[in-house]
């Protein structure tokens, strides 16, 4: 029987690799009886989702623009490269 420490480790690893059948069953069994580890699992998934959402928000925000100074600098570099 897994304890909370072992379960939380496997829950985290399940985001990085496929758990073995035995590990999956052991985790599932523990989660059945432990609401804190269920909470932990839900929150890890929520965190990953939130990071993804944050990336999408940045990518789709037209108010985020390359600073004009940087644009000017790149523009100058383009000029000099073609001299």
């Amino acid at each position, binding site marked *: 029987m897994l*304890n*909370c*420490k*072992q379960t*939380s*480790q496997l829950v*985290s*690893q399940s*985001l*990085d*690799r496929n758990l073995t059948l035995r590990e999956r069953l052991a985790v599932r069994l523990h989660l059945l009886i432990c609401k*804190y580890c269920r*909470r*932990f699992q*839900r*929150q*890890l998934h*929520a*965190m*990953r*989702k*939130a*990071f*993804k*959402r*944050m*990336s*999408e*928000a*940045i*990518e*789709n*925000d*037209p108010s*985020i*623009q*390359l*600073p004009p100074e*940087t*644009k000017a*600098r*790149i*523009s100058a*570099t*383009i*000029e000099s*490269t*073609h001299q």
Partner: protein
Amino acid sequence: MTTPNAHDWLTEHSDYLYRFALARLRDTHLAEDVVQETFIAAIKSPSFAEQSSPRTWLTGILKHKIIDVMRKNVREIAASNLMNDEDANMDEFFDETGHWSEQPLAWDIPHDALQQKQFLTTLQSCMDKLPTKLASLFMMRDIHETDNEEICKELNITSTNAWVMLYRARMGIRKCLEINWLQA
């Protein structure tokens, strides 16, 4: 000559490329640098004039530049010795029988737009608080979605090491959220 073309591309695509880079690097200076490097690489490329879909082509170059930055970050981490750190110990989270010493409190991503924005800001600041090496590894995996095998190759560590470190990063961010979001 190709010069006017490059300037048009700068006007049309640089903001898009910048946002693309910023979403992945989460650092304005690094994002500006990779966009600049992308344009320089583009105008030096022999296939520059033949591009019918410049945005796709430029994004492809940018992706490589971003990976280079991540690689450089993680190499520096590897050099600083991954496993030897004060946060290596997880005992603060669990008692000697392996039970939570502080049981996780209930929270979820808020639905309300404003609250969600505040939540994401807190999440970002929690990530920023991680030790650099953990943060970079975490970004490679959870933001950049690099696969585990590639991470291990880049860092020259075993899969087990990577899992342990990602576990620590997630435990740290989760705890930080609990303190700064829930109890704020």
